[in-house]
């Protein structure tokens, strides 16, 4: 019976280990597959910690299994074991060894704490971004470039990105697992800084990591790393004038019903996500993935996604401040089409 218990305990653990080691997650999302120096430094510390902890676990498990099997009471055994009060030598060993292990972990921890808190907000080489979290979207302002965008943080590859994070409402947390870890976006004066860089081009997934309301889990964003020339084209394109819809009826509806809150180019209001270049973003609303080859229910063409989002925002993101705007079917189609074609041509 007890031998069986031993295997019963071990078998699912082993099965899980196999399963788990085969899946370290997506390279654009997992902390286990870091894509930049900051996440690599954090992963290095994680690996060190995991190794030390595995040693501890192996020792404890080994002793546990040994005593469980070796010192079982045989049936009818009435003997009284020796009543040991303690053992100074042993007790010193298991006090000192953990202290040594903790020093091995503690020294690089402290180094890394200071290294990762470096302030790049005055660094002339760094690209400064002010991140403002809103229920449930992200605003990215590049103060030195005078531009503002939403949901998609476009960065030049290899450059240090200096983040200043704050919130316009409740506490959020700005997390890019594959690049940088996270920092809270606090309301009020408690602004936070963070930095990271992405040496490789690509799109990385970002998430909100602090419960902020019903759509907290849907408050995704993207970090898009492009080469420097593309980045320059992007910043220029973002500041270029934007043509409004050519159909006068659609234009009228767009100006009166959308631009009261949103902005395109130099027109419209600043309070809600800037729509300039929305047609070339990876997603609509952070979670409806734009693709011509939809596989999952949250994927579709840019047009379909925009249509779905504008038609009923609450169905996509419960609790979003975007209202269900009264639009005729023609206006809905026209605005979706216009926005899906509102692209920025900056990638080569």
């Amino acid at each position, binding site marked *: 019976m007890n031998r069986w218990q031993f295997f019963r305990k071990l078998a699912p653990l082993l099965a899980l280990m196999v399963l788990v080691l085969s*899946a370290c997650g997506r390279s654009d999302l997992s902390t286990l597959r870091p894509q930049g120096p900051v996440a690599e430094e954090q992963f290095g510390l994680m690996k060190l910690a995991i190794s030390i902890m595995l040693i501890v676990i192996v020792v404890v498990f080994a002793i546990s299994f040994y005593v469980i099997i070796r010192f079982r*009471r045989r049936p009818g055994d009435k003997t009284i074991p020796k009543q040991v009060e303690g053992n100074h030598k042993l007790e010193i060993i298991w006090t000192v060894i953990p202290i040594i292990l903790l020093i091995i972990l503690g020294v690089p921890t402290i180094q890394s704490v200071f290294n990762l808190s470096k302030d790049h907000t005055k660094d002339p080489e760094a690209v400064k971004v002010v991140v403002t979290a809103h229920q449930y979207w992200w605003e990215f302002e590049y103060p030195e470039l005078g531009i503002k965008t939403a949901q998609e943080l476009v960065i030049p590859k290899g450059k240090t990105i200096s983040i200043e994070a704050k919130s316009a409402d409740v506490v959020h947390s700005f997390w890019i697992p594959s690049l940088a*870890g996270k920092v809270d976006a606090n309301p009020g004066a408690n602004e936070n800084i963070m930095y990271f860089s992405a040496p490789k081009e690509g799109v990385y997934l970002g998430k909100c990591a602090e419960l902020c309301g019903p759509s907290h889990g849907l408050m995704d964003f993207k970090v898009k790393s492009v080469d420097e020339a593309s980045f320059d084209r992007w910043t220029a394109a973002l500041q270029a004038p934007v043509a409004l819809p050519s159909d006068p009826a659609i234009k009228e509806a767009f100006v009166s019903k959308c631009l009261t809150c949103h902005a395109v180019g130099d027109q419209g209001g600043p309070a809600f996500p800037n729509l300039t270049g929305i047609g070339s973003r990876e997603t609509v609303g952070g979670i409806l993935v734009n693709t011509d080859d939809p596989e999952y229910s949250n994927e579709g063409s840019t047009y379909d996604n925009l249509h779905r989002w504008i038609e009923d925002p609450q169905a996509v993101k419960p609790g979003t401040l975007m209202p269900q705007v009264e639009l005729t079917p023609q206006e809905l189609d026209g605005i979706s089409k216009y926005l899906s074609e509102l692209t920025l041509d900056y990638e080569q």
Partner: protein
Amino acid sequence: MAHGHAVKRYSGLMDWLTTVDHKKIGILYLIAGGFFFLVGGLEALLIRIQLWKPLNDFVSADTYNELLTMHGTTMIFLAAMPVIFALMNAIVPLQIGARDVAYPFVNAIGFWTFFFGAVLLNVSWFTGSVPDGGWTAYAPFSGTTFNGDHGFDYYVLGLQIAGIGTLVGGINFLVTIINMRAPGMTFMRMPMFTWSVFITSALILFAFPALTVGLAALMFDRVFDANFFDPSGGGNAVLWEHIFWIFGHPEVYILILPAFGVISEVVSTFSRKRLFGYSSMVFATILIGFLGFMVWAHHMFTTGLGPVANGLFSIATMLIAVPTGIKIFNWLFTLWGGSITFTAANLFAVGFIPTFVMGGVTGVMLAAAPADFQYHDSYFVVAHFHYVIVGGLVLGLFAGLHYWWPKMFGRMLNEGLAKLTFWTFFIGFHLTFFVQHFLGLMGMPRRIWTYLDGLGFNEMNLISTIGALLMGLGTIFFLLNVVITAFKPKNAANDPWEDGRTLEWTIPSPAPEYNFKQTPLVRGYDAYWKEKMDGHTEMTPAEPIGSIHMPSPSILPLFMAIGLFITGLGLMYSHGEWGKIAGIEAGFVVGGIGLIITFACMIIRSLIDDHGFHIEPEELQDKGVKA
């Protein structure tokens, strides 16, 4: 008869409503805590059903946030704490050779305020405005600007009232353990469970006032339009995080230390060996309690406290691993060389040790602040704290309940069914939470209503849900066992495990009303075991048989708690919801009436002397608590 005055004795329901007997109060705590454990467990199952597949819409996003908030709050405050208090009440006075706690009346107040606070919090489900910002209630999301309904009013007032119960309970046990030990029971002869309860009570004394202050401030924000935490009115949101975690971190040690105590007792009894390194165990427990107050900011590494604070709190947190490690190895070496029998209680205890270590090592990993920038608020944290709270505390509580069940109820739980409980719960637990470490590392944030498809989260979430169902099954087996056992004859022996080492096993199961006919004389650590080894069958009495002074039952504690309940409810609805009475908000009027009830009870208690009654020697028979 030589009674001072008429003996007030009730039977049936009135007996339970008026009791000041620590054993009955323990049972009340167990029933209430067990009930809320089921409620919280049901909430957990709904959460896991929602997450079993991507983009599921089994519950709405709003409901999901309510479920996760109430699951956390219920499990910590309304399930774990009362079941701990159940064991404290049922066992500690017996272990120190006392006839009751120091303040039996206050003990009853403690239970009833906890109970009505808990009920008030759960009334929210029926009024439709349920707290939905997590058990941590981070401001300003928990304030009126972003949470205009009454959800967090229930949280603030419910927990405030329940917190009174915990605080007075903690004080009561401090006084009891300091003052009411039997002759010869020095501090360094106290059983380990009593020691852990002693330290836990000290932590309660220092930690709960922080919660009280925090909740009061949030109450002012919500009910009286103050501005402690809302930055839009000049408050500071981070302030709440500090206040909450200055309470919140010691709270996790308040939870786990009694489990450590239970494990020490169970492992020692069922390996027929003295606890290895008793004095270092005591020292380690004190050290953990002390360090527990120095580490709260490790919950706030991403809040932006700066590198100096993050570095200091990282190191302080890591230090806790040292005394905890001492405890782990002391348990293992208690088993080493022992004669171990695997009763269900011991299965839980032995299962606890490696499981708790797994939760402990992830705790040290989380302590490294830079790495925590990745772990923080991800499923890795969810896995970690469930390993220490479920894999640690709940396994410990199950061990304790199976171990002391005969002492509390006079009946042995069915061993076969109890072992089935262990295996389903234990395997289900690891299935549920082991994979969650990896979900977190792979980028899944915690507290999310749903997740997108194609992120690689699907399989592990499914496994986790299956595990949760298995844990539910384990709980059902336990309930079944309790019900079946209740119909069995009450025939447990004084020392049903035959290897009992401490004083509670020297008296009948269940213990008579007065616990000890004669206060025992304690001649060493493991007092009963020492007598057994010296060839005695019972303790040497420290006093001749005489009349025993008992406290009178009283209905006042119940009414005091009801008064507070009414006050809480009234305060919440003081913004015009109930109209006005004579120009004053009806809510405030109702709240005032509640306070009058409570104060009236306090005045009655203060002005009318009640000297209790005596049980005379000729009445002393070994009759136990009815349950």
